[in-house]
């Protein structure tokens, strides 16, 4: 699939920023998102190709503006909805609940 993810050779994306003593995860939620990758494969039975395809379908601006694990989140949300394990409706309801609890 041709899209924004096909970055090889593209100009104008700015400098390569490196971080000394970089942690494996930059926030606890990144670790949880990482863990979901292996855990959801087990029951949902999707493939890495399908996972990546969901990321490649992201809008170009959204793709560039969001981090690696945010890309993963999009893939989880889409695959789990498509297969009926967690629908967008119940997920958004839970998000609303959690946001209310946080305030």
């Amino acid at each position, binding site marked *: 699939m041709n899209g924004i993810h096909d970055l090889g050779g593209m100009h104008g994306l700015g400098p*390569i920023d490196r971080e000394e003593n970089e942690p494996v995860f930059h926030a606890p*939620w990144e670790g949880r998102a990482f863990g*979901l990758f292996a855990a959801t494969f087990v029951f949902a039975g999707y493939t890495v190709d399908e996972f990546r395809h969901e990321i490649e379908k992201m809008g170009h601006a959204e793709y560039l503006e969001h981090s690696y694990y945010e890309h993963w989140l999009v893939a*989880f949300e889409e695959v789990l909805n498509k297969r009926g394990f967690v629908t967008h409706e119940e997920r958004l309801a839970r998000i609303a609940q959690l946001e209310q609890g946080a305030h």
Partner: protein
Amino acid sequence: MATHRKETDPAIRVKALESLLTEKGLIDPKALDALVDTFEHKVGPRNGAKVVAKAWVDPAYKARLLSDGTAAIKELGYSGLQGEDMVVLENTDEVHNVVVCTLCSCYPWPTLGLPPVWYKSAPYRARVVSDPRGVLAEFGVSVPETTEVRVWDTTAELRYLVLPKRPAGTDGLSESQLADLVTRDSMIGVGVVAAP
């Protein structure tokens, strides 16, 4: 329907998924804890460094590593997710190899752990294929004009590990002392191993 993903804190989005999947009995949060712990503390570039050091001291192992990377790496106990098909690229005076994944961020987890942010970033993925010597210079690596630079674009199935050059003056070092010298960046090809 709107997925609200632009407006929502990613930490809340993860929590929503994790809590729903846990309530449905589809995942065990303890299994997630174990995965996070493994990749934070147990799997990382020290694994790859042991592979490199063994190849430097054991010519027969090096030959196996270059002909069947997956099997030779498995001899040291490193295999599995995102390391199912490994190819090892030897850096020499003639050739300097560099690894990227332009389409995604594919990386050999069993030997190097999870990739650093710069490896996953758009600027590295875009530029290392069109201006590899410029990128290497930014990483402090100067490759002589007489050395060919080869950039390897990782696929979803196949992962590369660079076997860096052994630094001069290390004849007296043990295998584990040599492993201590090997950096993550040298095994991606954006670094060289310095003598102690």
